[in-house]
């Protein structure tokens, strides 16, 4: 009798296993904060794309972007591009922090940033510049 109840209980417990595994498989990225960061970054990308392609702006190894060669930007635009880079970096930092927080692990922020750093480079178009592990600029 005891062992039958025990077995039934075990069966019920095991039925939860696939659900738990599924819940652990994805990171939460559908929060309002992450959504609005994505949207502003997407809009800003239209202005930044040309500068990635020209090589003026590059992807850094810490998951941000930087002015790589200001001489490639006409003097009149330089300040505006610096502003774009600063705004983008602020959003990227906020994005990494928000993802970590949305998943209940603020301490994951640095690992999320490292993951993004690799994925940005992986998905960059050829011709764009990025920093390798030692910090040197490389053209993709």
């Amino acid at each position, binding site marked *: 009798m005891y062992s039958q109840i025990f*077995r039934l209980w075990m069966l019920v417990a095991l039925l939860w296993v696939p659900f738990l595994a599924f819940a652990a498989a994805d990171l939460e990225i*559908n929060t309002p904060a992450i959504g609005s960061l994505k949207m502003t970054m997407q809009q800003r990308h239209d202005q930044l794309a040309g500068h990635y392609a020209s090589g003026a702006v590059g992807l850094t190894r810490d998951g941000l972007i930087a002015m790589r060669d200001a001489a490639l930007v006409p003097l009149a635009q330089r300040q505006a591009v610096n502003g774009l880079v600063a705004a983008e970096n602020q959003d990227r930092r906020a994005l990494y922090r928000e993802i970590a927080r949305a998943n209940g692990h603020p301490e994951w922020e640095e*690992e999320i940033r490292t993951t*993004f750093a*690799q994925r940005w480079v992986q998905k960059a178009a050829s011709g764009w510049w990025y920093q390798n592990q030692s910090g040197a600029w490389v053209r993709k």
Partner: protein
Amino acid sequence: MRTLPMAMAVLLAATVSSCVTINIYFPAAAAEKAADKIIDEVWQLKKQGDAPAPAKPDEQK
């Protein structure tokens, strides 16, 4: 006769502890997947046909 419940108890303990483990350690594969999804949206790399559909049904997980 008591070996089956014992075996199941051990299995359950192992399962539960592995779930806890997943939540404590950084889920690298899940993070990569999340990063890819966000980058695709920010850089608009995945074109879902030609229809201008900002809300993609497969994004609602």
